[in-house]
């Protein structure tokens, strides 16, 4: 897939494009990560967070869209 930067995606898709932009960036760049937060002293810490290729934290919905692409390496 072609790398689509967030800036480009915004230009193409306009409002509501963050999920698409993040997903595109992830698939295209393979830089997106999906990781657990650091170990916490209890069970109440942030359990899992999703980040886009630049490290911005994403919503779970956005992250779930990224995850299959990451896992398949598409």
């Amino acid at each position, binding site marked *: 897939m072609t790398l689509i930067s*967030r*800036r480009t995606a*915004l230009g193409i898709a*306009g*409002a*509501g*494009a*963050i999920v698409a*932009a993040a997903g595109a960036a992830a698939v295209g760049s393979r830089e997106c990560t999906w990781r657990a*937060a*650091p170990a*916490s*002293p*209890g069970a*109440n*810490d*942030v359990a899992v*967070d999703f*980040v886009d290729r*630049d*490290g*911005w*934290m*994403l*919503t779970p919905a956005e992250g779930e869209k990224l995850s299959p692409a990451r896992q398949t390496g598409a």
Partner: protein
Amino acid sequence: MFVTDRFDPAAYDCFIVGSGPAGMSLALALARVRKRVLVFESGDADQPRSELSNSIGYGHYSGEYWNGHWFRALGGTSALWAGWCVTHRDIDLDNPAVGTRWPIARAALVPYWNAAAEILDRDPEYVAFEAPFAPGFVYRPVPTGPATRFGTKYRATLEAPAGVDVALGRSVVALETNGRRSHLTSLTYVDHLLGIRRSLTLAPRQSLVVAAGGMGNAQLLLQPRADGAVPVGNESGVVGQFLMEHPEFYLAGECVLEAELDKFWPAANKSTGMHTIVADRAVSIEHGLYGCALQCMKKSPDHDMARFMTAQSGRPYFHYEITAHAEMLPSPSNRVVLTPERDRWGLHRPSAHCTIDAKDFQNVERTLRVFGATLIRLGQGRVRVNNDRIYRQAAGEGHTLGTTRMGDDPSSAVVDSDCRVHGYDNFFVAGSSVFPSGGYANPTLTIVALALRLAETIARRA
């Protein structure tokens, strides 16, 4: 007035070692209740005696680091102060994640913070201002403004005949005690201009306060005695231990916030305050967080993520860079010790070992992540964590904390809640060296507040 030759020691109610924010605030407060005070200052009125600040650092704060924040002239380190004033919160004084409790409740400090704010030329209401931010987080701006330079502000006051005398160019190098170590009996000082040592006798009614900075206080109270006995003031054995800084992480992260959350920013802000956000007590307890202020800077709508969020929501967003001002866990292995090397007056050179703990780094990352998760849950913003700025580029704020810590237990603390050295009746310590934990707050406001509180204690006994 500035004393230039011999003086009559018996005329004084209190001797103070150091003329920085702690020592000078204390001296002037005592003068207001008609107590006679003599302040020893190593430096001159205008010129520092920098060669006396001779510590060597190891760990995250190495080499000459601590000397850059140990200023030896009238007014002490206020000459270098950046002017930031903020109060500690309840949880900064008693946080289970830190494991150290201050023996003073926050409410007991409030009147002294208010008085200290006026000395530091700040609005008392502003130094304690806070407002709810997002759930779980509190907006606590830090007033900055022009820094108060004590040597300048009070010079005319000190030059006039009044209750405060200042012995410039004199350093206290030794303390002596009675056999039971219940009160100090004499002190020895050097006169740098004349190149001589002199001693003076202390009567039990006369108080002595060491207010020579976090490094200087430890250096004096660690000096070995010729007879091999425990150094005067270190009967607890913990002088020098629990050295702390406030680690600073420039650009530890960035965030975009919905403009609605911007309403707490003072409308009249003209770069005279730092906009900081901290986790509240409940979130701190829930996540095991301790001091970490997220200073949000360079507000701008002109950022990709801000534009995205604005476009997605139809509501305006701003972008901010975040610098984190954090707390270090107090650790006995972070400490000031003396080296065998001595200066010409016989004072051993201090060595400072200070390492930021893995938990301290993780505390900053975790605070940012919890903040980001909160904003996502609310749909009001996003956070980006800058890993390398946290874990590879830590700096410091020039705060030397904890080396003569305060506590109720004489076996684990140097001074009690009145800043009196445990076991003594006329021996006190002032300054940030008494902080049992650091919180995230800049210390000068609390240094002055504790000095004003100490003035009342000393006035009662004199």
